């Protein structure tokens, strides 16, 4: 098979999946994340395929470990939320290095960013990479949604005819797949036993060298500043739509005054309000995530509220000559409330918040945030009548 042949071969995998009509997200209710089977999508195989290896079941595509410009650009793009749902690789079996019948099988998701990290970090290994159809979602989220689940592992193993490719009966799964996969059920379902590897792909070589033993640090999630920082762009792009609607409302409200409606005031006061909104969003979506471990409090609404409050206090000090008392108070309340609300949404991006905790926090924080926002609005609109 030449280069084109292997490409067609990989593309056919999508067609196979489409024909078999894998059940979509029906089992997991409303799934907002790429709830379609991986077919009819842009394919990126040219960035990672470099040939094929012969196996008892025929040729298997071979991948390399290099991360090129296209991979880096692609990662930046999806970090900003562009085409994230469609950033996928074809599910199925791939060869890395020169694997044989005794080589380890690494199981992963078909989100291309995940796949790229695995092939990069497993560089130098002779291994099989079994890519499951997780609808283009990363391991952790797909496990939570159930798409990186027991059934998909069994289906992936069966479809790849793995028992004919390798002599052993062992799969190495990322540890963070555990919320979706019952190891003992996989064994019953396809005869392969599951070994949970490290949380991070970069520990995979050390894990294998240690005889498939993970050290406690390999088993533990961490959330360093860089990891938090790379998640902030998606927080911003995710808030653009609600922010746009809110800003439109603020501009309308800004024109309300003694003269019923003043377009001039709508523009001038609206700009100021929109700036306050933007400050609140940046405080909650960027400053709070980055400063997370140093901001006081356990709950994200408190951390975000403090970040927003400090930011607004600085703004009030800076403009103290031109701000009326009511406007200053409105600014303080509004930025604090918006930052607190936006920061609360960052709970979804962290690897340590429990749903019970988030729900408890929300029941407490939402009324306070709403109250502050309403009070800010009354002060601000009322201020227009008493100048």
């Amino acid at each position, binding site marked *: 098979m030449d280069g084109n042949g292997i490409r067609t071969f990989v593309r056919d995998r999508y067609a196979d999946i489409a024909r078999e009509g894998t059940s979509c997200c029906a089992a997991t209710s409303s799934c907002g*994340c790429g709830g379609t089977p991986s077919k009819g999508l842009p394919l990126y195989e040219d960035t990672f395929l470099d040939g094929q290896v012969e196996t008892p079941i025929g040729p298997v595509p071979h991948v390399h470990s290099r991360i090129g410009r296209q991979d880096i650009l692609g990662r930046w793009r999806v970090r900003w939320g562009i085409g994230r749902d469609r950033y996928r690789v074809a599910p199925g079996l791939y060869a890395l290095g020169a694997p044989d019948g005794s080589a380890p099988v690494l199981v992963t998701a078909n989100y291309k960013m995940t796949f790229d990290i695995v092939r990069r970090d497993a560089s130098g290994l002779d291994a099989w990479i079994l890519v499951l159809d997780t609808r283009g979602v990363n391991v952790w989220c797909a496990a939570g949604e159930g798409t990186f689940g027991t059934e998909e592992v069994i289906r992936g193993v069966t479809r790849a005819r793995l028992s004919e490719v390798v002599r052993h009966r062992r799969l190495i799964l990322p540890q963070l797949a555990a919320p979706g996969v019952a*190891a003992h059920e996989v064994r019953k379902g396809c005869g392969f036993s599951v070994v949970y590897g490290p949380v991070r792909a970069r520990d995979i070589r050390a894990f294998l060298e240690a005889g498939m033993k993970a050290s406690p640090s390999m088993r533990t999630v961490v959330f360093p500043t860089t990891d938090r920082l790379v998640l902030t762009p998606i927080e911003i792009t995710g808030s653009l739509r609600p922010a746009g609607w809110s800003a439109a409302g603020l501009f309308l409200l800004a024109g309300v005054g003694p003269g019923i409606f003043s377009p001039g005031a709508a523009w001038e006061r609206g700009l100021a309000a929109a700036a306050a909104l933007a400050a609140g969003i940046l405080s909650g979506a960027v400053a709070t995530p980055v400063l997370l471990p140093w901001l006081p409090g356990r709950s994200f609404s408190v951390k975000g509220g403090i970040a927003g409050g400090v930011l607004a206090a600085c703004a009030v000090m800076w403009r103290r000559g031109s701000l009326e008392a009511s406007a200053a108070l409105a600014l303080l309340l509004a930025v604090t409330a918006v930052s607190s609300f936006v920061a609360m949404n960052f709970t*979804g991006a962290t*690897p340590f918040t429990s749903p*019970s905790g988030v729900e408890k926090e929300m029941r407490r924080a939402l009324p306070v945030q709403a109250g502050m926002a309403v009070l800010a609005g009354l002060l601000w609109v009322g201020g227009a009548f008493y100048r």
Partner: protein
Amino acid sequence: MEGFRYMDGVATLRLDVAACTGCGMCGEVCPHGVFAVAEGKARILDGDACMECGGCALNCPAKAISVNPGVGCAAAIMNGWFSGSKPSCGCGG
């Protein structure tokens, strides 16, 4: 997790020590070191570190662990409130 603690006393994690066979899977899959396994039994070492992902309960062959699993995500919980269904998020990250 070092440097990060969420709220105490909320996690729904429960371990039935009598049913536990001490296989150690819970300790292996937990990314927050919640469990310690010694002398053929698991015990909850740090229950407040639990983020209720459900990995331990799903991988417990003895069904000795119960937890109300889900995504710890404010947007997901709001989605659940408004749609009246199970919380589900857009997988932010």
